């Protein structure tokens, strides 16, 4: 068997030198297949060498290691064995990320060979009603943040009257600490397309857009190529896969506005306007893109669907806990030793994820704070690490799961500074529609500056508390409405950081 080498073209791998490693391998005359990333990010750039005994992985690679690895093979010190035997992989349940890292992302043949299109074939066979029923039964909840049941949203779109209906895939992924959407778009783009087509079949929508943030140029390029290939192979278009169904889609690119991840702001942006949030009702399901019934869904929600159809909703809902069913691709980020993507059924505790799976901090210092759910998510102290990864359990502790990003901080973190940043971020990204968000966030920064300066701390803490209440109750969307979570959780769990009298800089 001729030697074949696999190296990711995933942005995170490229950002730490995967292209240079690939070039060094190619220079030796050995063909390189570029793949997605498995998500063992601390081992990137990862390289796999196919032998008669299977694919062996090596990492983190540098170009200088290439010839040594190719000569020594599995005896080389960078060899970590087969990827599926690695404890980080073995303990996962990969449904969404089943193929990511394994296949050439742009090969529809490999996509099929590794289980792709099984879900769509079922949907085509059982038809719209049964497809919708399966998604409802599965208990799948939206992975974009709000956790709304996907099947119920689709039923609303299906029942809405309209000559044209749309599926809009939300790939704005603005939360810090999240990269699951990016990884799947770069590593398994046909899965996104398959999920969108199934959504189209279930709702009667024939047209789709995927709105990708501009910070993800590689994902944009891969999705565009995948769509072109899907069209060429009649996976998109009329009579797709020889069925009676019609679905086609295009990519649109955001322009650096966090708020455009909010679904109505996203629709405004897709229509070519300022991304200002729309008041609800009307719901996008009734009155969405260009006024037509529209299902807006997160990338991971949509990519969860094919396996629900392929293996049945009962199998899917047998995973997870409470009302949080199925698997969740968790992103371990920031100051964490084993950073990466970890897909498991809901229910592991935050402590298990951060300490056992993630290995604690990358700096080796004690974990002090953990932010889950992006810039609008609460900061949890050590004492809340027993919280299980479950929508309701997080809500009960004043937190949120959001898009399932976990950002770890060591004991050098200054929580007053983190609270200030939350307000500053809100001020920068506010769409400007409501005063509590637009002005309140600016005031919030000023007040925290006073507190950090040791200026009438008690009065200003009271003021901050009032300001947060006003923002919570007087904001139209969750940007202004939820930014009090990181701020108040910092204050509640780490009060000492707001009490240190500081010297003026």
């Amino acid at each position: 068997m001729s030697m074949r080498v696999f190296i990711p073209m995933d942005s995170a791998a490229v950002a730490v030198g995967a292209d240079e490693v690939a070039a060094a391998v190619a220079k030796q005359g050995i063909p390189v297949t570029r793949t997605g990333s498995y998500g063992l990010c601390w081992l990137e750039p990862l390289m796999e060498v196919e032998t008669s005994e299977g694919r062996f992985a090596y990492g983190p690679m540098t170009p200088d290691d290439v010839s040594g690895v190719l000569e020594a093979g599995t005896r080389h010190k960078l060899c970590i064995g087969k990827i599926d035997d690695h404890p980080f992989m073995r303990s996962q349940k990969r449904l969404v990320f089943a193929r990511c890292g394994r296949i050439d992302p742009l090969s529809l043949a490999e996509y099929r060979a590794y289980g792709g299109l099984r879900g769509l074939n079922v949907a085509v066979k059982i038809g719209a009603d049964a497809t919708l029923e399966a998604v409802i039964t599965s208990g799948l909840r939206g992975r974009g943040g709000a956790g709304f049941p996907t099947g119920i949203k689709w039923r609303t779109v299906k029942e809405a009257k309209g000559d044209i209906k749309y599926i809009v895939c939300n790939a704005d992924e603005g939360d810090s600490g999240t990269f699951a959407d990016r990884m799947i778009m770069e590593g398994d783009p046909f899965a996104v397309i398959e999920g969108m087509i199934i959504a189209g079949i279930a709702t009667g929508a024939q047209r789709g857009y995927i709105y990708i943030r501009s910070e993800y140029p590689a994902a944009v390029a891969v999705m565009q190529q995948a769509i072109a290939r899907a069209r060429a192979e009649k996976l998109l278009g009329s009579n797709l896969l020889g069925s009676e169904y019609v679905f086609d889609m295009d990519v649109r690119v955001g322009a650096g506005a966090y708020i455009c991840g909010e679904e109505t702001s996203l629709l405004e942006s897709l229509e070519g306007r300022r991304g200002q949030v729309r008041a609800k009702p009307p719901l996008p399901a009734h009155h969405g893109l260009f006024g037509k019934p529209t299902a807006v869904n997160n990338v991971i929600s949509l990519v969860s669907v094919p396996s629900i159809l392929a293996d049945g909703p009962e199998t899917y809902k047998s995973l997870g806990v409470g009302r949080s069913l199925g698997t969740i691709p968790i992103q371990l980020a920031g100051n964490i030793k084993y950073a990466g993507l970890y897909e498991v059924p809901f229910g592991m505790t935050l402590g298990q994820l951060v300490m056992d799976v993630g290995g604690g901090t990358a700096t080796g210092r004690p974990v002090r704070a953990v932010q889950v759910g992006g810039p609008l998510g609460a900061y949890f102290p050590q004492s809340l690490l027993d919280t299980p990864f479950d929508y309701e359990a997080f809500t009960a502790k004043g937190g949120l799961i959001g898009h399932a990003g976990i950002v770890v901080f060591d004991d050098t973190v200054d929580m007053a500074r983190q609270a200030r940043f939350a307000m500053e971020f809100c001020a920068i990204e506010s769409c400007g529609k409501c005063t509590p968000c637009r002005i309140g966030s600016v005031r919030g920064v000023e007040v925290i500056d006073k507190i950090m300066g040791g200026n009438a701390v008690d009065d200003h803490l009271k003021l901050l508390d009032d300001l947060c209440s006003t923002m919570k109750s007087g904001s139209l969307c969750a940007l202004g409405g939820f930014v009090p979570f990181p701020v108040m959780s910092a204050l509640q769990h780490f009060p000492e950081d707001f009490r240190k009298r500081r010297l003026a800089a």
Partner: protein
Amino acid sequence: MTTFAAWDEKQGAEIIEAHKALQGAALPILHALQAAFGFIPDRAIEMIALALNLSRAEVHGVVTFYHDFRRELPGRHVLKLCRAEACQSMGADQLADTARQALGIDWGGTTADGRVTLEPVFCLGLCACAPAAVIDGKLVGRLTPTLLASTIAEARS
């Protein structure tokens, strides 16, 4: 280093023409214009307004809403540093202070010699390889103070 074409009304008109039939064409047009010329000139705003049957104020409102769109040509090198939480946890604030001091500019500024523009970015999806940056379009993860310093020195020379 990224080089842009000088603003050219004919080329601008062609770009607008090529995209104007798209649904919600404003963003695709603005992206294409900025990719060609590096920024969105006033004249382009007038031309887009005319092509899409909008008022100039409306187009101006769109351009200024989005952080991506520039109203001025950037420096010859563009350094984007991630300022978001995962990168903060790995020292992004210190890197940002270093960059601002070394370049003598704040976020959004361009050095007086026109060589370097410094822009903030809020997450590049590289949060498992933090801190992250984009240097002239190239993604960089696990950015170190040494690498940042040499990048800046190279860009300025």
